[in-house]
């Protein structure tokens, strides 16, 4: 089987691709930074004896989606296609508030782009009647917050979309995992104040592979974020709206 890893320069995707390769899967790395992806490909090829390929890909440019689909099919060469979607950006809310263009970009990379791409790939999963899509949501999508609501709303939209896609694909035998990481120690969160219980990218990648193997639907990573988010979701809005989080 192969994994198409989208947004492959992120450290979560880097770790995911490594671990999936160690389990014997072929890896197609898709993303914008070709030089960096070439280094990731070399890393994987040095660790594991699996086929690896790099495809230039921009999630925000829907015209590239079909090309990626074809590249994945030719790379898979009949083997099962699986998809790990980790593309996304998280600008500070204050920056977004100052620049409407940034709001648009945030929605495109975290929501619209993901939906359009998965719509393209869904028929492939229906046809092969198997395979897994893992998409990175976020605990930020569970409730809109002062500090992060454009990003959070895009992820919330993605969560809803993934629920529907899951229902569509389960009928054929394919599976969709919504992975909701809490704080992860990546470039996205580096130096941000107020983080706690920060997980390593490798731990998130492990959780993703386990969720796929066990066909879990919605997974918090690490698991205890389920408890944290249950509490946060249950705070009454008239109180929550005044919280500085």
């Amino acid at each position: 089987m192969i994994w198409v890893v989208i947004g492959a320069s992120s450290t979560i995707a880097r770790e995911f691709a490594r671990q999936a390769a160690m389990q014997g899967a072929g890896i197609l790395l898709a993303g914008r930074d070709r030089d960096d992806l070439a280094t990731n490909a070399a890393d994987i090829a040095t660790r594991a004896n699996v086929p690896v390929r790099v495809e230039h890909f921009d999630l925000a440019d829907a015209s590239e989606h079909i090309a990626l689909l074809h590249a994945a099919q030719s790379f898979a060469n009949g083997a099962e296609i699986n998809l790990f979607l980790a593309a996304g950006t998280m600008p500070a809310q204050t920056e977004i508030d100052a620049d409407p263009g940034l709001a648009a970009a945030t929605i495109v990379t975290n929501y619209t782009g993901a939906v359009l791409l998965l719509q393209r790939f869904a028929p492939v999963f229906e046809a092969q009647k198997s395979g897994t899509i893992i998409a990175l949501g976020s605990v930020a999508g569970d409730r809109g917050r002062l500090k992060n609501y454009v990003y959070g709303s895009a992820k919330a939209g993605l969560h809803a979309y993934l629920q529907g896609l899951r229902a569509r694909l389960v009928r054929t035998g394919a599976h969709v995992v919504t992975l909701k990481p809490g704080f992860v120690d990546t470039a996205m969160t580096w130096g941000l104040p107020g983080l706690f219980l920060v997980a390593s990218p490798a731990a998130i990648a492990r959780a993703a592979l386990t969720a796929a193997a066990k066909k879990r639907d919605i997974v918090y990573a690490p698991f205890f974020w389920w408890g944290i988010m249950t509490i946060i979701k249950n705070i009454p809005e008239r109180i929550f709206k005044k919280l500085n989080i």
Partner: protein
Amino acid sequence: MTRWKSDRFAGWGRTAPALARAARPERQAELDAAFASAREFGATLPRGNGRSYGDAAQVTDGALILGTRLDRFISFDATTNLLVAEPGVTFGDILTAFLPRGLAAPVSPGTMYATLGGALAADAHGKNHDRAGSFGAHVEWIDLLIANGETLRCSRDQNADLFRATIGGMGLTGFVRRLALRLASASPFVRVKESRIDDLDEFFEEFAASRDSATFTVGWVDALAKGGRLGRGIFETAEYAPDAAQRPPGLRAPKPIPFDLPGFALSAPIVRGFNELYWRRVPEAGRDGIRALDRFLYPLDSLADWNRLYGKRGFHQFQAVVPDGTARDAVRDMLEKIAATGNASFLAVLKTLGGEGHGLLSFPMRGVTLALDIPNVAGADELLSSLEFVARDAGGRIYLAKDSHQSAATFRATYPRLAEFESVLAEFDPEKRFESDLSRRLGIRGRPA
């Protein structure tokens, strides 16, 4: 667009945390951006996993550039065993990826969490120094980001002066962004021979008998034993055991120490008891056994964050090497001084080293090295100074990767190639962009602060 994080950064001994900013590039291009952006903050320094004990990997009020996320293998040539990698690759990564193929790092420090960049900057030595030399001896070339923003390929033939300055150069010549390391044959298990040693003379006899033939040798000394028992301990030699059961040595997750221990945990009676037990663990007649390579090379790694055992005030690590000719007297002198203060320390490590390293500031010389933890309590300063003087007077030197205390005068008197090192820095870093708290303390390139 580099994001800087302000934080306190310390060495593994945690005695003198420094406020600094840090960037952690995840891609090669981000490294260049971070280095350019660091200019506004003054002094810059590479940092790996922070396993050096003292102040080598911190720079107060400066900018640290962490190499830990530049952690990819770039190529491996199975005919020459040459591995090209980014500097954030750790010894643990190499073990996991290559031991199943019968290969390992040719030289490894006592922790698998050290990065290749850190090991190169320290010119680290392992338990096989007599025969294998230090880390730099196995590095074919490096790509070094230097002060003017260029990256230079450095090797024994190309930019050879920078190459020699960077090996053991404690991050002061630039940022190693890629390096080529020749791996060595290995197997997942070693046969370890342990024997009880009653006193220091016996240790020297054992080392003399096996240092040129055994693959690995190491001694553990009870640093609190006095009088006739001075220098008692355990002597270990090990050979690869290729015939032992072929189980890949899955790295066990270390057990964490969740908080700083209170002071009494390391009081003299407790440590004395521990050392006694450790010594008695090996039967009088000695013993032979098979051990997984990682357990043999990295015994301390099974306790995560064990440095917290020493509590909030932290600890110093003292490591000196003294030449063979003076070693017996000097080591005895040091052990007597330690035992007399009773400044409790777990086992001290005694090893032989085979010769000088390739780097201008490489630590090793042919002789004997003693390393031990010294809790940062009243009297530690005096003890460290007296040990420093013994090492200096015996013609030895103190290891920069461990040092938190030696004087600039001792350093200058004991590193004979320092002037050459400083002239390389003057040529390639005239603006003094690279500095560390260690270089300031020791007055490298100028008077100590």
